[in-house]
């Protein structure tokens, strides 16, 4: 892997991590309201997979959506502004943490209804196939969402219509406090894809390089005519499901074990071993990211809240 690429992935993963940590801080201060779902621990998934997509490929996910937004290239300032409910936010302060999007980057959101976006991603794939482009859709979802009707209906329909979509299950082992084993009769995610005759593979979601390679190959497979596709990316969220999670459902030992596989740590060790950068150079990247976060917070804090008349703006396109 090219050194510059490894460093770029490192930078992106640190950006996501620091952004999320800052969000937690701002939440404690009451500046971010509503629900806040952090991506800490899962960074390699968004970074590795989105690195493998081409600009024309679409990204859509559930409510744990900050990382995907940052990685597609949305402006951290406007993302932070959205979280603070400001008019300058990507969704004009109307979406909040669960509803970030950046359509100019083919990032279609950010959806709060578990599984609700799975048919939307499927429909985006239908649109591309209809228009006869070579674009594919990366449709991310949690392990918990594989138990909802939308998941099954969408996979089936995509299979019937050979749609160019990759269903990417970010298996972080839990849906809120319910483990996969307690929620899925078929706890092995790839067997769910088999029910729809869909090629599926498991990926180590703590290794950004493995994620990248898997998604790359899967996009190639779609271009070779085998669509749709399914990936189970195994990962773990180091923090709670959302802010205020009592964390009663998993042991400290389990969390510590996974923290040992911190995807940023794994990449850092790889970079140092390959002599792609020195410790100092990585620290410099950390500092640069820090400055980006500071700037984003400053922008968000200084931005205005939506004007009262914004309440009625954008309900319809044609009034």
């Amino acid at each position, binding site marked *: 892997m090219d050194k510059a690429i490894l460093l770029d992935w490192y930078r992106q993963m640190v950006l996501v991590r620091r952004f999320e940590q800052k969000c937690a801080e701002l939440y404690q201060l009451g500046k971010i309201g509503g629900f806040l779902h952090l991506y800490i621990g899962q960074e390699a998934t968004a970074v590795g997979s989105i690195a493998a997509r081409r600009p024309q490929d679409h990204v859509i996910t559930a409510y744990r959506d900050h990382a995907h937004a940052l990685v597609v290239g949305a402006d951290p300032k406007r993302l932070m502004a959205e979280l603070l409910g400001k008019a300058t936010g990507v969704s*004009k302060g*109307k979406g909040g943490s669960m509803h970030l999007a*950046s359509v100019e980057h083919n990032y279609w959101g950010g959806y709060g209804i578990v599984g*609700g976006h799975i048919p*939307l991603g499927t*429909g985006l794939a239908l*649109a591309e196939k209809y228009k006869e482009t070579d674009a594919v859709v990366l449709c991310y979802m949690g392990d918990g969402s594989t138990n909802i009707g939308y998941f099954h*209906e969408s996979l089936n*329909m995509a299979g019937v219509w050979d749609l160019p979509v990759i269903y990417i299950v970010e298996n972080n082992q839990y849906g809120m406090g319910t483990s996969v084993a307690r929620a899925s009769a078929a706890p092995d995610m790839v067997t769910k894809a088999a029910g729809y005759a869909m090629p599926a593979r498991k990926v180590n979601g703590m290794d950004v390089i493995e994620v990248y390679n898997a998604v790359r190959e899967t996009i190639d497979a779609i271009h070779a005519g085998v669509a749709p596709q399914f990936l189970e990316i195994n990962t773990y969220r180091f923090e709670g499901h959302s802010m205020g999670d009592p964390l009663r459902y998993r042991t400290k030992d389990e969390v510590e074990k996974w923290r040992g596989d911190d995807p940023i740590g794994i990449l850092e060790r790889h970079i140092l071993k390959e002599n792609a950068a020195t410790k100092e150079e990585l620290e410099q990247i950390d500092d640069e990211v820090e400055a980006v976060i500071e700037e984003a917070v400053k922008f968000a804090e200084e931005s205005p809240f939506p004007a009262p008349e914004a309440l009625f703006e954008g309900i319809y396109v044609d009034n």
Partner: protein
Amino acid sequence: MALITMRQAITDALREEMQRDDKVFIMGQEVGVWGGTYAVTRGFYDEFGEKRVRDTPISEMAIGGVAVGAAMGGLRPVAEFMTINFAFLALDAIVNHAAKIHYMFGEQMRVPVVYRAPGGGGRQLGATHSHTPDVIFAHFPGLKVVSPATPYDAKGLMKAAIRTDDPVLFIEHHTLYQIRGEVPEGDYVVPIGVSDVKRPGDAVTIVAYAQGLQVALEAAKQLAQEGIEAEVVDLRSLRPLDMGPVLESFRKTFKAVIVEEGYRTFGIGAEIAARLQEEGFDYMDAPVKRVAQLEAPLPYSRELEQSALINADRVIAAVKEIL
């Protein structure tokens, strides 16, 4: 002008829009090879091919949601629910996604989807297959809800629904497919969100739409034989709701009867009556009357079902109570 059925009017609108814009396509259960459960898309599969006339699995949630995604991606889907009763399974896709996405993402996306949904009571289909749940869908800002009563309106509203960049639920009352009416040759649009006076009069205002409109017109005809000239206003769209012609008529007649096939409780009539007292109180000469479905699940047995539904006699009785 040709005298055609409402079914034909909808068919013509769909065909003309598909010929006009190759981004318009149809998806739903049995829309293709079968020709449409109500034969609205008969012949389309051969004419437009399987790419544009897409038979789906029996998957209402996916029909509802995939159509949203396709619309976000630049297509103009006309997604059919075999009947509106089955659209309950897709309520989340319609209400939480189609109706919210433009607003919730700060206008970054558009969802120009049309959901077609035949529905209504009166055909002995039993409790689960006879709903007139229009008001449920009309509750939510972000969705447009239309339900025509005449072939002319059906064709023009379908064209408007396909052309608007907003999501539209297009409700077709299944007992109206056979009614005939004048429809001009060629292209025209009936704007969404504009009510229409279907019959002039000065004695009482009857507000109705869809099948209720036909009931109201029948009642007005019989009342006229007794010298009572009722003005009948057709809402045509439930959201956006155009109260203009309703209020204008009410300021002339001072009395109103609202006719709808759905239930009275929390119904369209409740909304119209509330708006009349809010916006037309000074003109109110009598209580506003509501004629609606009786509050029971619709039974199968013919006479029993009919006893729960609206009819001209009930409208006439309501009018006479307040004259």
